[in-house]
């Protein structure tokens, strides 16, 4: 009884805001586009058969999401390592909170700031002053990648930080006592033990990136087309709700697959099933 009362609000919230909309999306995905747009009831697999029409958007997303996650990892790991291992413990909490502070500002505002930094009056102007003329940064795939790394960095740093902080320092001392070079200690002990955090970070960032649409729109000039952008256009522009729903359902399936694969890898490298990805 107590359990039911404790779980009740969360369960109701999930049913109303997650399960019911998802059922609606599944129903829509078997329907047809009404002549003036929107949805009309039908039972057809035509929407799923038509998925190939957004193959380019799926391909863009499925390449840029893992690349973005890896770029995030390359930047985040040294930061997390410094925070967890090297930083003065007295300042550690302050430094960790600094990682989170940017989240207090809307993602939209921060991405707009990058639009100005990368635009002709920003960094390219400064480069022009020192002799590099006509550098174009804004509306390139590089700008999108930069936006992704910037926007998702904290989500990569924090899980890696947590797993590095739990690291038993005596293992590192033992390794050093037994004559291991610091490099072998790092790659033989620190990295493997932090892998659950790394996998959590990669899974988190990849999954969120699969639904990203703001960064490609603002920093890619609308020329980089993610599945998120395809969804926005299908619901708000061409108003083909059934096709949009079919893509959304497919995207959910892809996310679940990514999660399962990431979990398998995490179990294998950690040698245990005691790894929480979420």
């Amino acid at each position, binding site marked *: 009884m107590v359990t039911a009362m404790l779980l009740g609000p969360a369960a109701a919230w999930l049913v109303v805001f997650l399960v019911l909309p998802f059922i609606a999306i599944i129903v829509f995905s078997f329907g047809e586009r009404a002549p003036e*747009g929107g949805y009309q009831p039908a039972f057809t697999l035509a929407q799923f058969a038509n998925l190939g029409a957004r193959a380019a958007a799926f391909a863009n997303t499925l390449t840029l999401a893992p690349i973005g996650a890896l770029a995030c990892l390359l930047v985040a790991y040294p930061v997390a390592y410094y925070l967890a291992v090297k930083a003065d413990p007295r300042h550690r909490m302050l430094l960790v909170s600094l990682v989170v502070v940017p989240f207090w500002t809307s993602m939209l505002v921060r991405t707009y700031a990058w639009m100005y930094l990368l635009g002709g*009056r920003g960094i390219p102007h400064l480069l022009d002053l020192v002799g590099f003329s006509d550098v174009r940064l804004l509306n390139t795939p590089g700008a999108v990648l930069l936006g992704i790394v910037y926007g998702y960095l904290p989500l990569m740093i924090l899980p890696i930080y947590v797993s590095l902080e739990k690291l038993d320092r005596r293992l590192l001392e033992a390794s050093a006592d037994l004559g291991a070079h610091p490099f072998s200690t790092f790659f033989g002990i620190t990295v493997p033990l932090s892998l659950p955090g790394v996998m959590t970070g990669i899974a988190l960032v990849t999954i969120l990136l699969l639904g990203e649409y703001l960064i490609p729109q603002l920093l890619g000039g*609308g020329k980089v087309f993610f599945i998120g952008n395809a969804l926005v256009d299908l619901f708000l522009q061409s108003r*083909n709700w059934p096709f949009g729903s079919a893509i959304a359902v497919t995207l959910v399936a892809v996310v679940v697959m990514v999660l399962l694969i990431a979990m398998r890898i995490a179990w294998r490298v950690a040698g245990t099933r005691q790894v929480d990805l979420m």
Partner: protein
Amino acid sequence: MANRHKENLPITAQGFMDEFMRLKRGSVTRRHFLTATGLGLATAVMSRVPGAISTPAYAEDLGSQMSIATWPNYHDPATFENFKAATGVAVEVNVFGSNEEMLAKLQAGATGWSLFVPTNYTIATYHKLGLIDELDLAKLPNFSAASENPRFTKEGQIDGKTYALPKNWGTTGFAVNTSKIKAPLTSWKDFFEIAQGEADGRAMVHDYQLTTIGSALVSLGLDFNSIKPEDLAKAEELLIKVKPHLFAINSDYQPAMRATDAWMTMCWTNDGAQLNRDIPEIHYILGKDGGEIWTDYYAIPKDAPNKAAGYALLNYLMDPKVAVKEHTANGAPTTDSRVLELLPKEIVSNKIVYPDEAALTPLEFGAAVTLTDPGRAELMARFKSA
């Protein structure tokens, strides 16, 4: 204590009714009634507010809040402030990027809008879907059908009934920064050629199928509104060839043009006028091979939560003295000859806003079928994901 908050009111409800009955019986003068009830003071205050006098007395309760769906940079912000001062109704402004987006929101329902600004080619669709009301012109005494140019009002009428009143008309041409691009441009054919040459990496097209595909069709000598698969295939070939040379596919082109990140963009009249006003070397050009002419209208959604305020605001906006400020602010041309007479000479003589009739001849109004054609939507998706 419970009634204490009422002590600040000029009169109680009971007192008001008593005075009202005395007025009706003729036992007191109207002046006594207005003074005793506080209505006289209210009327006196109202009459000092600009614009309030020409609006009729509001018989209905307008509430305190309404919302309007419109386009970016499209109104004089003072208009809504003045409307609030005159009526007490605060106007929440929702800004949209495309007619499709507005339509999608209205189709989904519960938008909360009491007035919105659809473009000519969408009105038939809104009517067909039963999303808009026929307008009660008796509630809109400031509107004058006689002074409107029928070219820009006819799509607001369906089967002889008025569903929408015109806000302003305009064109879709392109803006060129002439300090950066030296080649003279006169047509959409030039636009797409220069985009791959002198303006490589500096040209923008709308994130909007109607104008982007339409202008590409025009540059190939085809019809702006074509939905023929063979025509669309040719437009697609051109657009995909041009895409690697574009700066962006985005309908919000003013920031990039002002920062000179972009040198050339597909552009609507009002943006062209605003850009040219602030940066004179940015010219606005109408394609001599064709392009779009349009009218934006005001309409009231069927499910508007505050229709009374929607009508009141629409009537307010139809007041030529109010409309003239709107046109001065947003730069788009008026459909109403009463407003034209009030506009300053430098606006009326501005060829961006009021082009010569000859420049308008090749232009076409967008068609309803163009907006909802699935073939065009798919083309746009392929163009953007290529």
